[in-house]
C-alpha cells in the first residue's frame, strides 16, 4: 500500500450510504476530516453516528459511496492494513478472560505481525508507552477484570494507542463514566490530536463535552448531515429545537468563549407528540412566573403568560419555552395593546394561575384582569409569599386578591400543590373548564 499522503484529508467519505433492508441509516454522507482534527459526531439516538463509525471501521458494509483512509480506498484494504490506519475505542468492552493489563495492551500490536511472530522489544516498548500515556503503568501486572470502569476505559484507549494508527475512532467512550473520568478521557484524546497529530472522530452524546473538546462538530439527523462547523457556530437554539426537539439556554463561558447549554425542557415528547393539556394562562412578572412555567411545561401543559415586562426573567423564560405571552415595556404601566393581548390569552385559557408577583401601581391591572374570569375558569392563586408582603399599592392589591378568593379562586402554597390542583380542577384539553354559568 501507498504510504499516507500528507496533503489530503486523513479520512474522506464520499456519498456514503448504508441501508439495513428498507431502513436507510446513512443517506449519502460527504465528509473530509483533515489530519490532527478532533471531530465530534453528534445527533439523537438512531441518527446514524454509530453506523458511520462502523462503516469506516469495515464492520458494516456500505451500500453505496466511498471511504478513503489516508488516500487509500478502504474497501481494498485487508483487515490488518486497515487496522494499521484506524484504531477503535468502543463504548464498552467486556473481556471474558482476566488478561494481564500489559498483555492486553500488547494485543493492540496484532496488525504488525504474522500469526507466527512473537512480539518484539519494540512492541513491548510501544505498549508500555501507551500504558504510561493513560496513566496506568503501575497497574501493568493486574488483571483487566480487576480495574474500575474508568480505568478499564483508559486501558481500552491504551490498547487502541498501541495500534499506533493515525486515525482514532471512538463511540461514546465516556457513556459509562462519571464526570471526572469523562473530562480526563476527553482531555487525553484532545492531547493526542493536538500533540500527536492523531485524527479523531468521536460519537458524543454530551454536547457540552463535544463543544468543550472538539475542534468541529458534525450533527447527524435521520442519516443526514444537518450541521457542520466549529462548536460555537453549530450549537444554536434553532438547531437544538429542530434536531433534538429541546429548548435549552445557550450560554458562553466568559473565560474561554466555549458555548455550553443548559437543557430546559422538551418542545415535544421524543416521539414528536405535542403537549395536549391546557392551555393554562400564568399571570406573573418579576421572575415569579418562571418556575411555574417550567414546571407546567414539564408536566405537559400548553401555556400562555401575561402581562410580563420585557427583559424580565419571566419574559425570557416564556420566550425560551416558546410560550405565547403579552409583553409590556419594563416599568411602564400596562398599555392597551398588552392588556388586549393578555385578555385574548385569558379567554383562550382553560385554567388561570396567578403567580406570586410583587404588585405595584404599574401592574395592578395585571391582577385586576383576572377578576372577570373567576367563576368562569378555575383560578389558582399562588400565595407564598402572602399578598400582604408584596402589596405595594397601599392595600388595593390585597383587596382584589380577597375578591378573587371570595369568587372561588383557590389559594395554593407552591408548584406541587398547583400541579395536584390542576389534575383535579384543571383542564384536560377537551372541554373548557367553565362549570359556572357564563357571566355577561
Amino acid at each position: 500500500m501507498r504510504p499516507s499522503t500528507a496533503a489530503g484529508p486523513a479520512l474522506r467519505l464520499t456519498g456514503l450510504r448504508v441501508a439495513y433492508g428498507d431502513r436507510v441509516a446513512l443517506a449519502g454522507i460527504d465528509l473530509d476530516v483533515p489530519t490532527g482534527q478532533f471531530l465530534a459526531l453528534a445527533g439523537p439516538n438512531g441518527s446514524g453516528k454509530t453506523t458511520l463509525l462502523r462503516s469506516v471501521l469495515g464492520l458494516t458494509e456500505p451500500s453505496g459511496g466511498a471511504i478513503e483512509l489516508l488516500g487509500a480506498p478502504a474497501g481494498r484494504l485487508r483487515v490488518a492494513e486497515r487496522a494499521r490506519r484506524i484504531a477503535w475505542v468502543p463504548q464498552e468492552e467486556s473481556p471474558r478472560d482476566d488478561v494481564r493489563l500489559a498483555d492486553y495492551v500488547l494485543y493492540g500490536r496484532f496488525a504488525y505481525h504474522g500469526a507466527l511472530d512473537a512480539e518484539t522489544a519494540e512492541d513491548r516498548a510501544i505498549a508500555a508507552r501507551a500504558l504510561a500515556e493513560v496513566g496506568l503503568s503501575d497497574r501493568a501486572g493486574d488483571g483487566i477484570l480487576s480495574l474500575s470502569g474508568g480505568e478499564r476505559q483508559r486501558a481500552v484507549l491504551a490498547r487502541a494507542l498501541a495500534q499506533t494508527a493515525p486515525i482514532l475512532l471512538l463511540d461514546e467512550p465516556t457513556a459509562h463514566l462519571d464526570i471526572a473520568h469523562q473530562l480526563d478521557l476527553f482531555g487525553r484524546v484532545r492531547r493526542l490530536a493536538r500533540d500527536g497529530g492523531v485524527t479523531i472522530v468521536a460519537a458524543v452524546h454530551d454536547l457540552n463535552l463535544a463543544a468543550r473538546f472538539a475542534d468541529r462538530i458534525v450533527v447527524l439527523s435521520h442519516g443526514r448531515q444537518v450541521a457542520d462547523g466549529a462548536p460555537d457556530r453549530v450549537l444554536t437554539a434553532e438547531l437544538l429545537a429542530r434536531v433534538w426537539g429541546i429548548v435549552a439556554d445557550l450560554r458562553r463561558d466568559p473565560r474561554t468563549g466555549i458555548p455550553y447549554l443548559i437543557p430546559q425542557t422538551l418542545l415535544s415528547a421524543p416521539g414528536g407528540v405535542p403537549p395536549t393539556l391546557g392551555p393554562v394562562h400564568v399571570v406573573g412578572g418579576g421572575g415569579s412566573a418562571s418556575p411555574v412555567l417550567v414546571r407546567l411545561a414539564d408536566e405537559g401543559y400548553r401555556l400562555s403568560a401575561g402581562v410580563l415586562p420585557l427583559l424580565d426573567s419571566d419574559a425570557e423564560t416564556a420566550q425560551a419555552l416558546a410560550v405565547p405571552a403579552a409583553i409590556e415595556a419594563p416599568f411602564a404601566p400596562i398599555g392597551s395593546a398588552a392588556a388586549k393581548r393578555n385578555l385574548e390569552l385569558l379567554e383562550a385559557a382553560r385554567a388561570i394561575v396567578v403567580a406570586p408577583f410583587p404588585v405595584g401601581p404599574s401592574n395592578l391591572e395585571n391582577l385586576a384582569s383576572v377578576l372577570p374570569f373567576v367563576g368562569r375558569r378555575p383560578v389558582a392563586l399562588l400565595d407564598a409569599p402572602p399578598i400582604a408582603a408584596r402589596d405595594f399599592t397601599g392595600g388595593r392589591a390585597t383587596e382584589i386578591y380577597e375578591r378573587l378568593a371570595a369568587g372561588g379562586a383557590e389559594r395554593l402554597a407552591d408548584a406541587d400543590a398547583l400541579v395536584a390542583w390542576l389534575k383535579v380542577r384543571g383542564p384536560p384539553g377537551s372541554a373548557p373548564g367553565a362549570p359556572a354559568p357564563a357571566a355577561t
Partner: protein
Amino acid sequence: MIYVYRFQPAEADVYLPLFAFLGAIATGLLILGVARGRYSSVETLLLTGVALANLLSAILSLLLLYNPTGSEQVTFWLLGGLGLASWPVDGIAAGSVLVLGTLLTLHGRELNLIQLGNDVAQSAGVDARRVRVRVILLASMATAVAVAFTGIIGFVGLVSPHIVRRLFRSDYRIVLPGAALVGALFLLTARDVSYVFFVGSLLPLGIFTAFAGVPFFLYLLYRQRRASTMGAM
C-alpha cells in the same frame, strides 16, 4: 468446545470410529452453516450445538429402538473408555491431535483478540469471521478424532482450559497446548484411579470423569461469577 457426535451402527470396529468422525465433521459444518453470514455470538453457536446434539441423540435413540442388535456396542461407546487403545489407533489419534493442535495453537494470538469481541478483534486487524470458521473446523476435527476412538468421555475438555488459565494466564498460545496436556494428564490419572479403586469392575471412564468433573466445573463457575461481580465494583 462443542460436543458433537453422530453414530451409524456397524459391525466392524473400524466403521464405528470412521462414521463417528464423519458425523462429527458434518455436524460441525452444519453448525457453521446455521451461524454463517452474521456476526453470530458465541451463545448462538453454543445453543445451535446444543439443539443439534439433542436432535442427534433423539435419532440415536430411534436407531437403537429399531436395531437392538447393535445396542451393546453403542452403549459401550456412549459410556466412553480407552478400551480401543492399541498401536494403529494410538498412532492415528496422536498424529491427528498433534497436527490439528499445532494448527489451532497458531491461531492463539487471533483468539486472544476474538475473546474481546468480534468487532474489537476486527478493528485490531483480525479477520474474525475467517478465523472463527477455521478454528471451529479444526476444533471439530480434533474433537471428532478423539471421540471417535474413545467414545464420550465428558468434562475433560471443559475443565482443563480453566485449570491452565488458573495456573498460568489467559493467553491462548499457552491455554491451547496447555489444556491438551492437562487434559491428557487428567484422563490418565482418572483411568489409573478407577483401576485402583474399582478393581475388576472396569467402571467406564466417561462415568468416572463426569463424577469428578462436574463438581469441579460448578466450583469454577461459582468462582468466576464471584470474580466478575467483584470486578464490576
